[in-house]
C-alpha cells in the first residue's frame, strides 16, 4: 500500500538531489568547456581503465572471500573484548590513506616485520609495490566493511531456524548447507559490489604507494592529465569514462541489492553455536589473523610517531585545529544533506533522488575541484574559496556512505511512525525535533562521524585552490617535502588520532541521543 501514501511534498530533498547532479555533471562540463571539448584517449589511458576495473574486481573478490571466515568466527564465538574488537576492526575504513600506507609499509614493506620474518625463515619475500600493493591496501580498507556486512547476514538468520536445525539433529555441514550458504548467496553479491564501487574510484592509494605504468588507475591518469600535461580535455574525457564505469556498475546494483544497514546496530547475538575441536581453532586463527592484518599497521605507525608528537611545531597544531573545524562543518553539512535526501527518499521520492545521492561516489574529486575552480573564479578569489570549497566537497563525497546507513532507517521510521505522525499533524520542525532526530540519531551520528573522519584525512582539492591556511594533511606533506620524515610520522599519528576521535564522538553522540 506504500504506493498510495498521501503525497507529501519534499522540495528540499529534490532540490538537493538536483544540485548534486548539477554539481557532478556541471563541473565535468566546465572542465570540458575550458578545454574546448574532449580529447581522445591514448593507449596508456585505456590501459589505466583496464587496470582500474581489474584491480577493483580483484580487490572486491579478495575482500569478500577473506571476510567470510572472519565474519563466521565472530558470529559464533563469544569472548572477552569481542565488542571492542568488532569496533576496532572498523578503524581502517576511516583511516587517512597516507597514514594507512605508512602503516602497511612498516608491516608488509621490504624492511617490514613480515619480510624480516620470512627472511629469517629462509622463505621468499613478498612485495607490496605495484599492483599487489594497490590490492593489499584496498583489502585493508575494505575487509572491515565486508566483515561487518556479512556478520550482519549471520546475525539476521532467525533464531527459530537454528532451533529447528538443532531439533532436526543437523550436523555443522547441514547447517552450512541449509542456513549459511543461502544467506551468503543473498549477501555476498551486494558486499562485492559495494567494495567494487569503492575501489573503482579509489585514487590516493595508487598515488601514495605508486607502482608506475602497470598500476595506473583512471583517477591517477586524470591527475597526470591535469598536473603535468595541462590537458583538460583528456582529464574531462577520463572523468567521463570513470562515470560511465560506475554507472554501468550501479546498473548492476539494480539486480544486486547492496546490503542496506551499513553501520547500523551491529552486535546482536547470533544463535550460531560455537563448536569445539578444530573449528574452534580455525575461528581463533581467523580472528587473530584478521585483527593482526588490520590493527598491526595502525599500531606500528602509532608506536613510531607517538613519541615525537609533543615536539611538533605550533604551526602543525594550528593546522590541526583548522582541520578539525573544517571537519566539523563538513560533518554538519553532510548530516543535513543526507537527512534531507534520506527523508525525501523514504517518503517515496522519485528514484532519481537516490541515484543523485550516490553520484558523488562516481565523481572524480579532481574533476570536481577543477570544475568548481573554473566556475567560481569569476565570483571570488580561489584563495578565499579554498577552504569553503574543500569543506563542501568533503561533505558531498561522504554523502553516499551516510545515505547507505540513513535510507533504511528513514524508511523504517516512515513505515512505523509516518502515519501516526501525519494523523497527529506533526510537521516541519516539530516532526524533526520530536520524531526524526530522536529516532535517526544513531545513523545520523554514524554518517556525521564518517564525514568528519573522511574530511579530516582528505588532502583533496585544496592543493588546486591553493591557500595560505594549510590543513593538517597538507602540513604532513609539507613536512615530508622538507625532509622531516620523523616529524611527518608524528603528524600522521596526530591526524589518525583526530580522525578516530571525531568519528567516535559523533558515533557515540548518536548512540547516546
Amino acid at each position, binding site marked *: 500500500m506504500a504506493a498510495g501514501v498521501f503525497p507529501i511534498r519534499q522540495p528540499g530533498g529534490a532540490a538537493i538531489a538536483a544540485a548534486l547532479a548539477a554539481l557532478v555533471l556541471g563541473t565535468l562540463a566546465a572542465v570540458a568547456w575550458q578545454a574546448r571539448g574532449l580529447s581522445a584517449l591514448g593507449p596508456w589511458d585505456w590501459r589505466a581503465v583496464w587496470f582500474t576495473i581489474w584491480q577493483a574486481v580483484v580487490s572486491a573478490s579478495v575482500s569478500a572471500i577473506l571476510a567470510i571466515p572472519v565474519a563466521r568466527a565472530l558470529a559464533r564465538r563469544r569472548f572477552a573484548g569481542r565488542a571492542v574488537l568488532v569496533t576496532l576492526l572498523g578503524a581502517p575504513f576511516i583511516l587517512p590513506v597516507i597514514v594507512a600506507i605508512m602503516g602497511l*609499509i612498516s608491516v608488509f614493506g621490504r624492511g617490514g616485520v613480515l619480510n624480516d620474518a620470512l627472511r629469517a625463515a629462509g622463505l621468499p619475500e613478498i612485495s607490496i609495490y605495484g599492483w599487489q600493493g594497490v590490492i593489499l591496501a584496498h583489502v585493508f580498507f575494505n575487509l572491515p566493511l565486508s566483515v561487518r556486512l556479512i556478520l550482519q547476514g549471520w546475525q539476521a538468520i532467525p533464531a527459530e531456524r537454528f532451533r529447528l536445525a538443532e531439533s532436526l539433529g543437523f550436523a555443522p555441514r547441514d547447517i552450512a548447507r541449509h542456513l549459511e550458504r543461502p544467506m551468503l548467496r543473498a549477501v555476498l553479491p551486494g558486499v562485492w559490489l559495494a567494495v567494487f564501487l569503492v575501489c573503482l574510484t579509489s585514487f590516493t592509494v595508487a598515488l601514495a604507494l605508486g607502482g608506475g*605504468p602497470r598500476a595506473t588507475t583512471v583517477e591517477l591518469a586524470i591527475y597526470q592529465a591535469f598536473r603535468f600535461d595541462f590537458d583538460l580535455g583528456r582529464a574531462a574525457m577520463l572523468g567521463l569514462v570513470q562515470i560511465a564505469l560506475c554507472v554501468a556498475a550501479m546498473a548492476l546494483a539494480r539486480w544486486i541489492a547492496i546490503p542496506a544497514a551499513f553501520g547500523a546496530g551491529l552486535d546482536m547475538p547470533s544463535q550460531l553455536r560455537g563448536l569445539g575441536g578444530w573449528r574452534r581453532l580455525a575461528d581463533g586463527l581467523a580472528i587473530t589473523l584478521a585483527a593482526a592484518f588490520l590493527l598491526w599497521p595502525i599500531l606500528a605507525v602509532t608506536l613510531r610517531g607517538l613519541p615525537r608528537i609533543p615536539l611538533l611545531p605550533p*604551526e602543525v597544531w594550528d593546522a590541526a585545529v583548522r582541520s578539525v*573545524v573544517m571537519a566539523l562543518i563538513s560533518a554538519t553539512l553532510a548530516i543535513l544533506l543526507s537527512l534531507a535526501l534520506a527523508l525525501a527518499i523514504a517518503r517515496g521520492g522519485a528514484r532519481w533522488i537516490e541515484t543523485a545521492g550516490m553520484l558523488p561516489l562516481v565523481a572524480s574529486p579532481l574533476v570536481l575541484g577543477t570544475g568548481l575552480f*573554473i566556475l567560481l573564479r569569476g565570483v571570488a578569489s580561489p584563495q*578565499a574559496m579554498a*577552504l569553503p570549497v574543500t569543506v563542501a566537497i568533503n561533505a558531498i563525497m561522504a554523502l553516499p556512505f551516510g545515505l547507505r546507513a540513513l535510507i533504511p532507517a528513514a524508511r523504517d521510521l516512515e513505515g512505523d511512525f509516518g502515519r501516526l505522525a501525519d494523523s497527529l499533524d506533526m510537521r516541519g520542525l516539530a516532526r524533526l525535533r520530536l520524531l526524526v532526530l530522536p529516532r535517526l540519531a544513531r545513523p545520523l551520528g554514524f554518517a556525521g562521524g564518517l564525514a568528519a573522519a573522511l574530511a579530516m584525512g582528505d588532502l583533496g582539492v585544496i592543493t588546486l585552490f*591553493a591557500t595560505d591556511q594549510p590543513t593538517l594533511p597538507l602540513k604532513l606533506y609539507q613536512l615530508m*617535502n622538507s*625532509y622531516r620524515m620523523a616529524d611527518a610520522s608524528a603528524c600522521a599519528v596526530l591526524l589518525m588520532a583526530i580522525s578516530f576521535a571525531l568519528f567516535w564522538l559523533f558515533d557515540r553522540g548518536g548512540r547516546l541521543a
Partner: protein
Amino acid sequence: MKSRLIAAMIVPSLLAVAPAAAQDRPVLTVYAGDYVASEWGPGPQIKAGFEAFCDCELRFVTGDILPRILMEGEGTQADIVFGLNTDVTARARSSGLFAPHGQDTSDMSLPVEWTDPIFLPYNWGETAFIYDETRLENPPASFAELLEAPDDLKIVIQDPRASISGLALLLWVKGIYGEDAPDAWAKLAPKVLTVTRGWSESYGMFTEGEADMVLSYTTSPAYHIAAEEDLTKKAAIFPEGHYFMTELAAQLASTDQPELAQQFMDWILTPEFQATIPLANWSLPAKLPQDDWPEVMRDLPRPEKTLFYDEAEAEALRQPALDEWLRAFSR
C-alpha cells in the same frame, strides 16, 4: 600558543578570507610551490627580507602553480611565480603571460650558460641517487655500474608523468645513453622497487629503509648533515654526468604592481637573497661565489660533468623518452 589556538578556531576567518589587502601597504602576490611557503621552506625568510625594504606585504599563494596560472589566464592575481621548473617553461612561455626579468645573467654560478630573458633561476642542483652508507657499503660508482648491479639493489624513482624529478631522470638517461636509452631502462627496471607520484613519497620510503637508493638531488645529504648531524646519507656521483635542475622565478605581464614585481626580481640575485637559499631550500644558490656558500654545501662532492637540455630540446625529447620509459615499465 593558547591564543593562537583560539584565533585559529574562529570560524569566520575560515570562511571569509577575502583578500585581507585592505591594509595600507600594497600587496605583492607570489604563487609558489607548496613547500616554499611552509615554515620549513625558504618562504618565511624571503618574505621577511623583502618586506624589510619594500614597504609592501608579500603574500605567498601555494599550490599547483602553472596549472592554475594557465587556467586563470590574464585575470590571475599573481604578480610573481616562484618555483617553476625548466620542463614547463616552454608551455609557460607560449602562454604569453610573462614579462622579461631584466637581470644580467652573464655571471651566474650555474654550470650551464643562462640566457633566458623571462625565467630567472634562483637555485640549482643535479639529479642524483642517494644512499645510506651504513646500509649500502658498495654503491655503484657509475651509471653503468648501477645498470649492471644485481637486481636486488632496489631503487625508488618518481613518475615522469607526475613529477619534475621523475622527468629529469628521463632526460638524464637520455643524455647519457641517447639512442640506447631503452636498453638502459630495461636494465634499470628490475631494480626499481616502485615508481611514486612525487619526490616526498620516494624519499620517505628510502628513509624507512625500504629502498637502497632513491632518486633525489646532489644536495640532499646537506640536510641530513646540517639539520640532523647524520653523515651517512651520500649522493652517488657518476662520471657520466648528472642532470641539471633549477627553479625559476618570473613576473606576470598582467601584474597590477609592476614596480614591486620588478623590485622583487631585482632582489633575487642579490647576495642577501642568495645566501638564504642553501640552508632553507637545500639547494645551491644561483648567483653566489662558492666561498660564500655554507660549509656543508661547499664540502659536498660535486659531479664533474653536467648534462642539460634546453627548453626546446627537452620539449622535443619528452614524448619519445616517455614512451620508451612506459614501454620498459609495462613489461
